[in-house]
């Protein structure tokens, strides 16, 4: 399936792409369009205001993907919380790693020639975060 999002990916979209490939659609292809551009018809949009897989109820798009696909892995919920705290304005903050992961993802986009490369490099970052949180939960 084709998935579409706006250019210049950051923590939420890099995380979404990782989650989509890992748990939702291993053959996913990603299309990046300019902010505000018309959505292609044959692609599922994510992290674009107003679409199904975007921010809802103060939660990030990653959270929307986890919830819609009924993923119950607590590590994914924890990652959703980290992205919530990095990407949205939260009054309650419980995840100190949120700022660090945000910084790394912004940096990833800066050193990547394009969005596709940024989400590819982002996989190792999110794999690492997942592994570390899994170890902590045991």
């Amino acid at each position, binding site marked *: 399936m084709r998935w579409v999002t706006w250019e210049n990916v950051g923590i939420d979209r890099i995380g979404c792409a990782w989650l989509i490939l890992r748990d939702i659609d291993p053959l996913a292809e990603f299309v990046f369009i300019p902010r505000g551009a018309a959505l292609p018809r044959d692609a599922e949009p994510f992290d674009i205001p*107003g679409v199904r897989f*975007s921010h809802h109820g103060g939660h990030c798009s990653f959270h929307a993907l986890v919830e819609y696909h009924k993923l119950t892995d607590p590590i994914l919920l924890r990652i959703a919380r980290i992205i919530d705290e990095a*990407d*949205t304005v939260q*009054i309650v903050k419980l995840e100190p790693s949120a700022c660090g992961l945000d910084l790394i993802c912004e940096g990833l986009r800066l050193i990547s020639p394009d969005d596709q490369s940024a989400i590819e490099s982002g996989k190792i970052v999110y794999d690492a975060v997942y592994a570390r949180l899994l170890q902590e939960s045991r």
Partner: protein
Amino acid sequence: MVRQWLLLVYKIPREPTSGRVYVWRKLKQLGAIALQDAAWVLPQTSRTQEQFQWLAAEITELRGEALLWEADQIYATDPDSLRLRFVEPVEAEYREILAALKGKDRDLAALSKRFQDVQVRDYFASELGRQTRKKLLAAGGGACS
């Protein structure tokens, strides 16, 4: 000084009041300023654009209406006054941290946490912020100060 701003104008149903308070608290946390009780303004950065965009989406979800603009300021009675309205409250907070640092029973962990919160709203990289950071590091003691 040429500077780009983001303007958010919104309307939200009076009831439930929780929705109104929720949005207002988020605006405060971002350090947004209400201009003439009409538009909320933030300096434009990729981060503030993202934050305002999602807040606008949340307002829509709360059955409100939101409009978000990028704006060039082309006239102001005092060109620097808008910048100062962001700088002044931030510097007041830094001064409070500096004053608390002089206290006997200062809570360094709480003050550092507060410093981080203020940093988010310090859109113009205040010199006082740099000084506060130095003082906090020095107060922490040890070789890395």
